[in-house]
Protein backbone atom coordinates (compact mmCIF):
# COMPACT_ATOMS: atom_id res chain seq x y z
CA UNK A 1 0.00 0.00 0.00
CA UNK A 2 1.31 3.40 -0.93
CA UNK A 3 0.91 6.30 1.41
CA UNK A 4 0.69 9.58 -0.42
CA UNK A 5 2.57 12.71 0.58
CA UNK A 6 -0.65 14.29 1.74
CA UNK A 7 -1.36 11.32 4.03
CA UNK A 8 2.15 11.47 5.48
CA UNK A 9 1.56 15.12 6.26
CA UNK A 10 -1.62 14.27 8.18
CA UNK A 11 0.04 11.46 10.12
CA UNK A 12 3.05 13.57 11.06
CA UNK A 13 0.89 16.54 12.08
CA UNK A 14 -1.33 14.45 14.37
CA UNK A 15 1.61 12.55 15.88
CA UNK A 16 3.43 15.80 16.58
CA UNK A 17 0.38 17.38 18.22
CA UNK A 18 -0.17 14.27 20.34
CA UNK A 19 3.49 13.97 21.39
CA UNK A 20 3.84 17.63 22.32
CA UNK A 21 0.56 17.58 24.28
CA UNK A 22 1.67 14.45 26.14
CA UNK A 23 5.02 15.98 27.06
CA UNK A 24 3.31 19.15 28.34
CA UNK A 25 0.88 17.08 30.41
CA UNK A 26 3.73 15.00 31.82
CA UNK A 27 5.65 18.11 32.86
CA UNK A 28 2.54 19.65 34.46
CA UNK A 29 1.83 16.41 36.31
CA UNK A 30 5.37 16.40 37.70
CA UNK A 31 5.08 20.05 38.76
CA UNK A 32 1.65 19.73 40.38
CA UNK A 33 1.99 16.30 42.00
CA UNK A 34 3.51 17.55 45.25
CA UNK A 35 1.26 20.66 45.56
CA UNK A 36 -1.86 18.52 44.94
CA UNK A 37 -0.82 16.03 47.64
CA UNK A 38 -0.09 18.98 49.93
CA UNK A 39 -3.50 20.55 49.21
CA UNK A 40 -5.30 17.27 49.89
CA UNK A 41 -3.33 16.78 53.09
CA UNK A 42 -4.22 20.28 54.20
CA UNK A 43 -7.91 19.74 53.41
CA UNK A 44 -7.85 16.54 55.49
CA UNK A 45 -5.98 18.34 58.27
CA UNK A 46 -8.55 21.13 58.36
CA UNK A 47 -11.39 18.64 58.53
CA UNK A 48 -9.64 16.69 61.31
CA UNK A 49 -9.03 19.88 63.30
CA UNK A 50 -12.79 20.44 63.30
CA UNK A 51 -13.71 17.06 64.74
CA UNK A 52 -10.77 16.22 67.02
CA UNK A 53 -10.21 17.65 70.51
CA UNK A 54 -6.97 19.45 71.28
CA UNK A 55 -4.02 17.19 70.61
CA UNK A 56 -0.26 17.35 70.72
CA UNK A 57 0.55 14.76 68.05
CA UNK A 58 0.08 14.75 64.26
CA UNK A 59 -3.04 12.65 63.61
CA UNK A 60 -2.34 12.45 59.86
CA UNK A 61 0.79 10.37 60.43
CA UNK A 62 -0.38 8.74 63.69
CA UNK A 63 -2.75 6.30 62.04
CA UNK A 64 -4.04 2.77 62.35
CA UNK A 65 -5.26 0.92 59.28
CA UNK A 66 -7.96 -1.70 59.62
CA UNK A 67 -8.48 -4.08 56.70
CA UNK A 68 -11.87 -5.77 57.04
CA UNK A 69 -12.37 -8.89 54.93
CA UNK A 70 -15.47 -7.60 53.16
CA UNK A 71 -14.65 -3.95 52.52
CA UNK A 72 -12.01 -1.34 51.77
CA UNK A 73 -9.28 -0.65 54.34
CA UNK A 74 -10.20 2.09 56.80
CA UNK A 75 -7.67 4.59 58.10
CA UNK A 76 -8.13 5.72 61.71
CA UNK A 77 -6.51 9.01 62.73
CA UNK A 78 -5.42 8.99 66.35
CA UNK A 79 -5.46 12.08 68.54
CA UNK A 80 -3.38 12.17 71.73
CA UNK A 81 -3.14 14.53 74.69
CA UNK A 82 0.25 15.77 75.93
CA UNK A 83 0.61 12.62 78.10
CA UNK A 84 0.39 10.57 74.86
CA UNK A 85 -2.93 9.07 75.92
CA UNK A 86 -5.53 8.62 73.21
CA UNK A 87 -8.23 11.27 73.58
CA UNK A 88 -10.07 10.61 70.30
CA UNK A 89 -10.00 8.54 67.13
CA UNK A 90 -11.35 9.83 63.81
CA UNK A 91 -12.17 8.12 60.53
CA UNK A 92 -14.10 8.69 57.36
CA UNK A 93 -17.29 6.93 56.43
CA UNK A 94 -19.63 7.18 53.48
CA UNK A 95 -23.42 7.35 53.44
CA UNK A 96 -24.17 5.82 50.04
CA UNK A 97 -27.88 6.66 50.10
CA UNK A 98 -28.01 10.46 50.13
CA UNK A 99 -30.69 12.25 48.12
CA UNK A 100 -28.11 12.95 45.43
CA UNK A 101 -25.17 10.56 45.65
CA UNK A 102 -22.78 9.69 48.45
CA UNK A 103 -22.23 11.80 51.55
CA UNK A 104 -18.71 11.68 53.03
CA UNK A 105 -18.66 11.99 56.82
CA UNK A 106 -15.75 12.42 59.21
CA UNK A 107 -16.45 10.93 62.63
CA UNK A 108 -14.42 11.35 65.82
CA UNK A 109 -15.16 9.23 68.90
CA UNK A 110 -14.01 9.60 72.49
CA UNK A 111 -12.17 6.75 74.23
CA UNK A 112 -15.54 5.69 75.77
CA UNK A 113 -16.91 5.08 72.23
CA UNK A 114 -19.29 8.03 72.36
CA UNK A 115 -19.12 10.59 69.55
CA UNK A 116 -16.89 13.60 70.00
CA UNK A 117 -17.97 15.36 66.79
CA UNK A 118 -18.93 14.70 63.19
CA UNK A 119 -18.50 16.81 60.05
CA UNK A 120 -19.76 16.37 56.50
CA UNK A 121 -16.74 16.75 54.24
CA UNK A 122 -18.27 16.10 50.81
CA UNK A 123 -21.80 15.91 49.43
CA UNK A 124 -24.02 16.96 46.51
CA UNK A 125 -27.28 17.41 48.44
CA UNK A 126 -29.84 20.05 47.44
CA UNK A 127 -28.74 23.57 48.40
CA UNK A 128 -31.14 25.03 50.97
CA UNK A 129 -32.69 21.68 51.86
CA UNK A 130 -30.38 18.71 52.29
CA UNK A 131 -27.27 20.83 52.79
CA UNK A 132 -28.55 21.59 56.28
CA UNK A 133 -26.26 18.70 57.28
CA UNK A 134 -23.41 21.17 56.70
CA UNK A 135 -25.04 24.53 57.48
CA UNK A 136 -27.30 23.61 60.39
CA UNK A 137 -24.74 23.79 63.20
CA UNK A 138 -27.06 22.73 66.08
CA UNK A 139 -28.05 19.66 64.07
CA UNK A 140 -24.41 18.61 63.65
CA UNK A 141 -23.64 19.29 67.32
CA UNK A 142 -26.57 17.12 68.36
CA UNK A 143 -24.39 14.10 67.50
CA UNK A 144 -21.81 14.95 70.18
CA UNK A 145 -21.78 12.63 73.23
CA UNK A 146 -24.26 10.26 71.58
CA UNK A 147 -23.34 6.61 71.67
CA UNK A 148 -24.95 3.37 70.55
CA UNK A 149 -26.41 2.85 74.04
CA UNK A 150 -27.69 6.35 74.91
CA UNK A 151 -29.60 7.31 71.74
CA UNK A 152 -32.17 5.95 69.33
CA UNK A 153 -30.35 6.10 65.99
CA UNK A 154 -33.04 7.32 63.61
CA UNK A 155 -34.69 10.61 62.65
CA UNK A 156 -37.72 11.68 64.71
CA UNK A 157 -40.07 10.75 61.87
CA UNK A 158 -38.84 7.16 62.23
CA UNK A 159 -39.05 7.24 66.03
CA UNK A 160 -35.45 8.28 66.71
CA UNK A 161 -33.65 11.09 68.52
CA UNK A 162 -32.37 13.11 65.53
CA UNK A 163 -34.20 15.96 63.80
CA UNK A 164 -35.04 15.79 60.13
CA UNK A 165 -35.26 19.03 58.12
CA UNK A 166 -38.42 20.56 56.74
CA UNK A 167 -38.64 19.28 53.18
CA UNK A 168 -35.63 17.00 53.54
CA UNK A 169 -35.82 13.70 55.39
CA UNK A 170 -33.75 11.48 53.12
CA UNK A 171 -30.47 13.35 53.68
CA UNK A 172 -30.47 13.37 57.53
CA UNK A 173 -31.76 9.81 57.53
CA UNK A 174 -28.81 8.69 55.39
CA UNK A 175 -26.33 10.49 57.66
CA UNK A 176 -27.80 9.08 60.89
CA UNK A 177 -27.81 5.58 59.44
CA UNK A 178 -24.21 5.85 58.23
CA UNK A 179 -22.96 7.19 61.59
CA UNK A 180 -24.76 4.39 63.43
CA UNK A 181 -23.21 1.78 61.14
CA UNK A 182 -19.78 3.36 61.62
CA UNK A 183 -20.15 3.19 65.40
CA UNK A 184 -21.20 -0.47 65.19
CA UNK A 185 -18.19 -1.24 63.02
CA UNK A 186 -15.95 0.61 65.50
CA UNK A 187 -17.30 -1.46 68.41
CA UNK A 188 -17.34 -4.81 66.60
CA UNK A 189 -13.83 -4.60 65.22
CA UNK A 190 -12.58 -3.40 68.62
CA UNK A 191 -10.46 -0.69 67.11
CA UNK A 192 -9.61 0.84 70.48
CA UNK A 193 -8.19 -2.46 71.74
CA UNK A 194 -6.27 -3.07 68.50
CA UNK A 195 -4.76 0.41 68.61
CA UNK A 196 -3.55 0.08 72.19
CA UNK A 197 -2.28 -3.42 71.46
CA UNK A 198 -0.26 -2.23 68.48
CA UNK A 199 1.20 0.42 70.76
CA UNK A 200 2.39 -2.14 73.28
CA UNK A 201 4.08 -4.04 70.46
CA UNK A 202 5.55 -0.83 69.18
CA UNK A 203 6.94 0.07 72.60
CA UNK A 204 8.63 -3.30 72.93
Amino acid at each position, binding site marked *: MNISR*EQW*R*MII*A*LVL*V*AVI*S*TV*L*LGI*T*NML*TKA*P*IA*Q*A*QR*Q*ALMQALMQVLPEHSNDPITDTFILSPKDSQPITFYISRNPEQHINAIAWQTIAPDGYNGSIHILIAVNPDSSIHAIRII*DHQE*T*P*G*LGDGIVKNIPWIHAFSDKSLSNARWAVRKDGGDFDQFTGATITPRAVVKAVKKALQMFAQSQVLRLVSKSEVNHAQ
Partner: protein
Amino acid sequence: MHSNATSNSNDTPIRNADILADGLWHNNTIFTQLLGMCPLLGVTTSAENGFWMGAATLLALICSNVTVSLIRGGIPEHVRIPAYITIIAAFVSIIGMAMNAWMHEMYLILGLFIPLIVVNCAILGRAEAFASKNTPIHSFVDAIAMGSGFTFALVLLGGVRELLGQGELFGFEVLGANYPDVLMFILPPGAFIALGFILAGVNIIKQRMQAQKKALMMASSSSDAVEAVPQAK
Protein backbone atom coordinates in the same frame (compact mmCIF):
# COMPACT_ATOMS: atom_id res chain seq x y z
CA MET B 1 -21.12 28.49 12.14
CA HIS B 2 -22.80 31.73 13.00
CA SER B 3 -22.28 34.63 10.71
CA ASN B 4 -19.52 36.58 12.25
CA ALA B 5 -18.43 39.99 11.12
CA THR B 6 -14.79 39.58 12.04
CA SER B 7 -14.08 35.99 11.10
CA ASN B 8 -14.92 35.91 7.41
CA SER B 9 -13.63 39.28 6.35
CA ASN B 10 -10.09 38.19 5.49
CA ASP B 11 -9.57 40.86 2.89
CA THR B 12 -10.19 43.89 5.02
CA PRO B 13 -7.90 44.48 8.02
CA ILE B 14 -9.45 43.49 11.36
CA ARG B 15 -9.48 46.02 14.14
CA ASN B 16 -8.85 44.80 17.71
CA ALA B 17 -11.63 47.10 18.95
CA ASP B 18 -14.12 45.30 16.67
CA ILE B 19 -12.96 41.89 17.92
CA LEU B 20 -13.46 43.05 21.50
CA ALA B 21 -16.92 44.48 20.89
CA ASP B 22 -17.87 41.33 19.01
CA GLY B 23 -16.85 38.93 21.77
CA LEU B 24 -18.09 41.00 24.68
CA TRP B 25 -21.44 41.96 23.24
CA HIS B 26 -22.51 41.59 19.56
CA ASN B 27 -21.49 37.94 19.22
CA ASN B 28 -21.40 37.03 22.95
CA THR B 29 -20.99 33.27 23.51
CA ILE B 30 -24.02 33.08 25.79
CA PHE B 31 -26.29 35.98 24.80
CA THR B 32 -25.99 35.62 21.03
CA GLN B 33 -24.49 32.24 20.15
CA LEU B 34 -26.17 30.36 23.03
CA LEU B 35 -23.11 28.10 23.34
CA GLY B 36 -21.66 26.64 26.54
CA MET B 37 -25.05 26.16 28.19
CA CYS B 38 -23.86 23.15 30.21
CA PRO B 39 -21.33 24.95 32.45
CA LEU B 40 -23.54 28.05 32.40
CA LEU B 41 -26.55 26.33 33.94
CA GLY B 42 -24.58 23.78 35.96
CA VAL B 43 -22.23 25.85 38.11
CA THR B 44 -23.88 29.25 38.42
CA THR B 45 -25.43 28.78 41.84
CA SER B 46 -23.36 31.75 43.00
CA ALA B 47 -21.54 34.67 41.43
CA GLU B 48 -18.19 33.39 42.71
CA ASN B 49 -18.62 29.94 41.15
CA GLY B 50 -19.61 31.60 37.88
CA PHE B 51 -16.54 33.82 37.98
CA TRP B 52 -14.03 31.01 38.50
CA MET B 53 -15.68 28.78 35.91
CA GLY B 54 -15.49 31.70 33.47
CA ALA B 55 -11.86 32.39 34.38
CA ALA B 56 -10.86 28.75 33.77
CA THR B 57 -12.66 28.80 30.41
CA LEU B 58 -11.05 32.14 29.50
CA LEU B 59 -7.59 30.72 30.19
CA ALA B 60 -8.28 27.57 28.15
CA LEU B 61 -9.59 29.74 25.31
CA ILE B 62 -6.50 31.98 25.28
CA CYS B 63 -4.12 28.99 25.20
CA SER B 64 -6.04 27.13 22.50
CA ASN B 65 -6.67 30.18 20.29
CA VAL B 66 -3.03 31.29 20.31
CA THR B 67 -1.71 27.75 19.73
CA VAL B 68 -4.15 27.00 16.93
CA SER B 69 -3.29 30.31 15.28
CA LEU B 70 0.47 29.65 15.54
CA ILE B 71 0.21 26.26 13.83
CA ARG B 72 -2.57 27.22 11.41
CA GLY B 73 -0.35 26.71 8.34
CA GLY B 74 0.98 23.32 9.42
CA ILE B 75 -2.17 21.31 10.10
CA PRO B 76 -3.70 19.59 7.05
CA GLU B 77 -7.35 20.47 6.55
CA HIS B 78 -8.68 16.91 7.02
CA VAL B 79 -7.21 16.32 10.48
CA ARG B 80 -7.64 19.83 11.88
CA ILE B 81 -10.57 18.96 14.21
CA PRO B 82 -8.81 16.06 16.03
CA ALA B 83 -5.70 18.22 16.27
CA TYR B 84 -7.69 21.12 17.81
CA ILE B 85 -9.47 18.81 20.25
CA THR B 86 -6.14 17.32 21.37
CA ILE B 87 -4.70 20.79 21.92
CA ILE B 88 -7.77 21.97 23.85
CA ALA B 89 -7.87 18.79 25.95
CA ALA B 90 -4.19 19.17 26.85
CA PHE B 91 -4.61 22.77 28.01
CA VAL B 92 -7.79 22.02 29.96
CA SER B 93 -6.07 19.12 31.74
CA ILE B 94 -3.15 21.38 32.62
CA ILE B 95 -5.52 24.03 34.00
CA GLY B 96 -7.39 21.35 35.95
CA MET B 97 -4.20 20.04 37.55
CA ALA B 98 -3.07 23.57 38.40
CA MET B 99 -6.42 24.37 40.02
CA ASN B 100 -6.33 21.12 41.96
CA ALA B 101 -2.90 22.07 43.28
CA TRP B 102 -3.31 25.76 44.01
CA MET B 103 -7.08 26.36 44.24
CA HIS B 104 -8.11 23.10 45.83
CA GLU B 105 -11.42 24.24 47.33
CA MET B 106 -12.74 25.83 44.14
CA TYR B 107 -11.56 22.76 42.21
CA LEU B 108 -13.73 20.58 44.45
CA ILE B 109 -16.76 22.86 43.92
CA LEU B 110 -16.48 23.04 40.13
CA GLY B 111 -15.53 19.36 40.02
CA LEU B 112 -16.66 17.66 36.85
CA PHE B 113 -17.24 20.92 35.00
CA ILE B 114 -13.50 21.64 34.74
CA PRO B 115 -12.66 18.61 32.51
CA LEU B 116 -15.90 19.29 30.65
CA ILE B 117 -14.42 22.58 29.36
CA VAL B 118 -12.85 20.35 26.67
CA VAL B 119 -16.25 19.80 25.09
CA ASN B 120 -17.40 23.40 25.47
CA CYS B 121 -18.24 24.03 21.82
CA ALA B 122 -17.50 27.73 22.29
CA ILE B 123 -13.77 26.92 22.48
CA LEU B 124 -13.63 24.60 19.47
CA GLY B 125 -15.86 27.09 17.69
CA ARG B 126 -13.35 29.92 18.15
CA ALA B 127 -10.45 27.66 17.07
CA GLU B 128 -12.31 26.74 13.88
CA ALA B 129 -14.03 30.03 13.07
CA PHE B 130 -11.37 32.52 14.12
CA ALA B 131 -7.95 31.30 15.27
CA SER B 132 -7.38 29.01 12.27
CA LYS B 133 -7.75 32.00 9.93
CA ASN B 134 -6.19 34.87 11.86
CA THR B 135 -2.88 36.01 13.35
CA PRO B 136 -1.87 34.98 16.91
CA ILE B 137 -2.31 38.54 18.17
CA HIS B 138 -5.83 38.85 16.80
CA SER B 139 -6.63 35.36 18.08
CA PHE B 140 -5.36 36.36 21.52
CA VAL B 141 -7.61 39.43 21.54
CA ASP B 142 -10.51 37.30 20.31
CA ALA B 143 -9.96 34.82 23.15
CA ILE B 144 -9.87 37.63 25.71
CA ALA B 145 -13.07 39.11 24.29
CA MET B 146 -15.01 35.85 23.95
CA GLY B 147 -13.79 34.52 27.31
CA SER B 148 -14.60 37.75 29.12
CA GLY B 149 -18.04 37.87 27.51
CA PHE B 150 -18.62 34.30 28.65
CA THR B 151 -17.38 35.07 32.18
CA PHE B 152 -19.59 38.16 32.31
CA ALA B 153 -22.65 36.04 31.44
CA LEU B 154 -21.75 33.41 34.06
CA VAL B 155 -21.22 36.00 36.79
CA LEU B 156 -24.47 37.75 35.83
CA LEU B 157 -26.53 34.55 35.97
CA GLY B 158 -24.70 33.35 39.11
CA GLY B 159 -25.26 36.75 40.72
CA VAL B 160 -28.99 36.82 39.92
CA ARG B 161 -29.46 33.27 41.24
CA GLU B 162 -27.41 33.89 44.38
CA LEU B 163 -29.22 37.18 45.06
CA LEU B 164 -32.74 35.79 44.60
CA GLY B 165 -32.01 32.36 46.04
CA GLN B 166 -29.97 33.32 49.11
CA GLY B 167 -30.13 37.12 49.36
CA GLU B 168 -26.35 37.26 48.99
CA LEU B 169 -23.85 38.44 46.40
CA PHE B 170 -20.28 37.03 46.29
CA GLY B 171 -21.05 35.56 49.70
CA PHE B 172 -22.03 38.88 51.31
CA GLU B 173 -25.48 39.47 52.76
CA VAL B 174 -27.23 41.99 50.51
CA LEU B 175 -30.97 41.73 50.97
CA GLY B 176 -30.85 41.49 54.76
CA ALA B 177 -31.36 38.59 57.14
CA ASN B 178 -35.15 38.70 56.81
CA TYR B 179 -35.09 38.02 53.07
CA PRO B 180 -37.07 34.83 52.40
CA ASP B 181 -34.74 32.76 50.23
CA VAL B 182 -36.42 31.77 46.99
CA LEU B 183 -34.92 28.32 46.88
CA MET B 184 -36.03 27.62 43.34
CA PHE B 185 -33.39 29.96 41.92
CA ILE B 186 -30.60 27.83 43.39
CA LEU B 187 -32.15 24.65 41.96
CA PRO B 188 -31.82 23.71 38.25
CA PRO B 189 -35.25 25.08 37.16
CA GLY B 190 -34.25 28.48 38.53
CA ALA B 191 -31.21 28.46 36.24
CA PHE B 192 -33.41 28.10 33.16
CA ILE B 193 -35.94 30.68 34.34
CA ALA B 194 -33.31 33.26 35.28
CA LEU B 195 -31.48 32.68 31.98
CA GLY B 196 -34.75 33.22 30.09
CA PHE B 197 -35.30 36.58 31.72
CA ILE B 198 -31.69 37.64 31.19
CA LEU B 199 -31.87 36.72 27.48
CA ALA B 200 -35.13 38.63 27.14
CA GLY B 201 -33.51 41.66 28.77
CA VAL B 202 -30.47 41.43 26.50
CA ASN B 203 -32.73 41.24 23.43
CA ILE B 204 -34.64 44.34 24.53
CA ILE B 205 -31.39 46.27 24.97
CA LYS B 206 -30.16 45.09 21.57
CA GLN B 207 -33.38 46.16 19.86
CA ARG B 208 -33.22 49.59 21.46
CA MET B 209 -29.58 50.00 20.42
CA GLN B 210 -30.39 48.99 16.87
CA ALA B 211 -33.34 51.37 16.66
CA GLN B 212 -31.15 54.19 17.95
CA LYS B 213 -28.40 53.38 15.46
CA LYS B 214 -30.90 53.28 12.60
CA ALA B 215 -32.37 56.60 13.66
CA LEU B 216 -28.93 58.18 13.84
CA MET B 217 -27.95 56.89 10.41
CA MET B 218 -31.13 58.13 8.85
CA ALA B 219 -30.84 61.49 10.52
CA SER B 220 -27.36 62.02 9.14
CA SER B 221 -28.03 60.64 5.66
CA SER B 222 -31.20 62.44 4.59
CA SER B 223 -33.75 64.95 5.69
CA ASP B 224 -36.47 62.27 5.61
CA ALA B 225 -35.08 61.00 8.87
CA VAL B 226 -36.78 63.79 10.74
CA GLU B 227 -39.90 61.66 10.70
CA ALA B 228 -38.07 58.49 11.72
CA VAL B 229 -36.46 59.84 14.87
CA PRO B 230 -39.62 60.22 16.94
CA GLN B 231 -40.72 56.78 15.75
CA ALA B 232 -37.58 55.14 17.07
CA LYS B 233 -38.27 56.54 20.49
